[in-house]
């Protein structure tokens, strides 16, 4: 499974949207129904899954799936 699909599978666990229906312009809060707690827990899971360390000040600016994927790509 590639990184993007792995990422979307995690997103799907937190929302009612299937991984294949998740698009880059979807917003975590407004379109996928993430609460602040959901979003922060999700980021923690990203860190554990991809073995990365996110900058808290950076991640607070993330609004869309595309932005989160871009951030993830930067670690590669």
């Amino acid at each position, binding site marked *: 499974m590639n990184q993007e699909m792995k990422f979307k599978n995690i997103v799907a666990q937190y929302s009612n949207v299937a991984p294949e229906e998740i698009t880059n312009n979807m917003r975590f809060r407004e379109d996928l129904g993430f609460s*602040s707690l*959901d979003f*922060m*827990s999700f980021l923690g899971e990203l860190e*554990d899954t991809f*073995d990365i360390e996110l900058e808290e000040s950076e991640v607070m600016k993330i609004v869309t799936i595309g932005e989160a994927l871009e951030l993830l790509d930067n670690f590669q």
Partner: protein
Amino acid sequence: MRDYYPLTAAQKMHHNWIRDYGTQQVSGVSVVASVQAELDFGLLKKCIQMETERSGCTRVHFTKPDQDGNVKQYIVKQDTRDIELKDLSKMENLAKADELMQQWAYETFDGDNIPMCEFTMLKLPEGYNGFFVHMDHRLIDSCGLVIMIGDLFQLYTYYRYGTAHPQELADFETVLKKDLAKAGNEKRFAKDKKFWEDQLDALGEPLYSDIQGPSVLEIARKRHGNPKLRSADIEMDNLFVAVKDYHLEPGPTQNLIDFCMNHQLSMTNLLLLGIRTYLSKVNNGQEDITIQNFISRRSTHEEWTSGGSRTIMFPCRTVISSETDFLSAAYEIQNIQNRIYMHSNYDPELIMEELRKRYHTPEHTSYESFYLTYQPMPVKVENEMLGVVRQHAKWFANGAATKKIYLTVSHTEDGGMNFSYHYQTAHLEEHDMELLYYYMMRILFKGIAEPDMSLGEIMEQV
């Protein structure tokens, strides 16, 4: 071969209260769920038995405590007990039946290796029928209980009326194993530990604040012979708690919701700001305020549907100058709360341990007097068949609070909000709650009306 598991951090929180206060009563949770309709009690019994199969957390037992008071948990395969039916329908009214159930809520599960969950089917006055469930909070939290009750009613209407079968629930044991594995992740643990310790490095020892003003800390300072003491004594003997509820009407509630929506704030953070501003006001403008905030750690589908006790409290500490405007203060709280969410896998007992190590905090003292739970979920059972039927659902206090004031804020069916203050009667009276609610509302509504106004001005004007 039976599998034994240690307690999770959330379970440990309740377990430590039981150990420290010497009674399981502090960990009791009880609810009645009923509908104003005839029920087939034979079928309801079957559904309750099926629910105990579906919800693994209802079958959790605890081992005998070891020499340090620690227990392990295990899940029994089946609960073969009968479900009793009690007929209270001849009682004068529902309120009288509630009084009786309140007494049941004070009862304790005493012993090791025993069930910690009990269902009783009920015929109630005024044509209501349903069941009472009494559990230990180490098995389930309030969100979990709401979901379990909804699931049970869905099972009932599926078999009785052919409605949709409830969706499968996540397996409690599987999720428990995942949680324990997550807690054992060394990298994650180190990050969480660093976050909490960095906060102490930056801010130093917290400072107690009380709704009764600075005299409470002064008394503790005298008692401990330490004029610089920053924590105050907690009640260890008389744990009796009274409850005072206030209803905020739909109109003003909507104003609070709109303010949150328009400024991308969560209601929890707005409430925390209201509480901390009141505490600051009655403590001579104290800027360093800590409130214990309960977080229901349910985000994924698995977490939502696996039952269990996932609610855990963390200290929300903010140092905010009285010159800060209301909206900026709200964002400061939101910022710290978001960071807390990211580190909420940590065991809060370790934060307290670190405080004790650094500052030699005396035993049975605390830096916090106020505990908040914001409950966005309705207690009402959502069910297509029951949608039109009148319901009576009620939470019963376990009667023994480990906390001086515990505020639960929830949304009501009419679009309003309920502010339920549980307060220790050893120190507080109903009048204190009246003042608290009155000023909390004045602060919140002044703040949302004039978000550029400084906290100092708001404190002066309300």
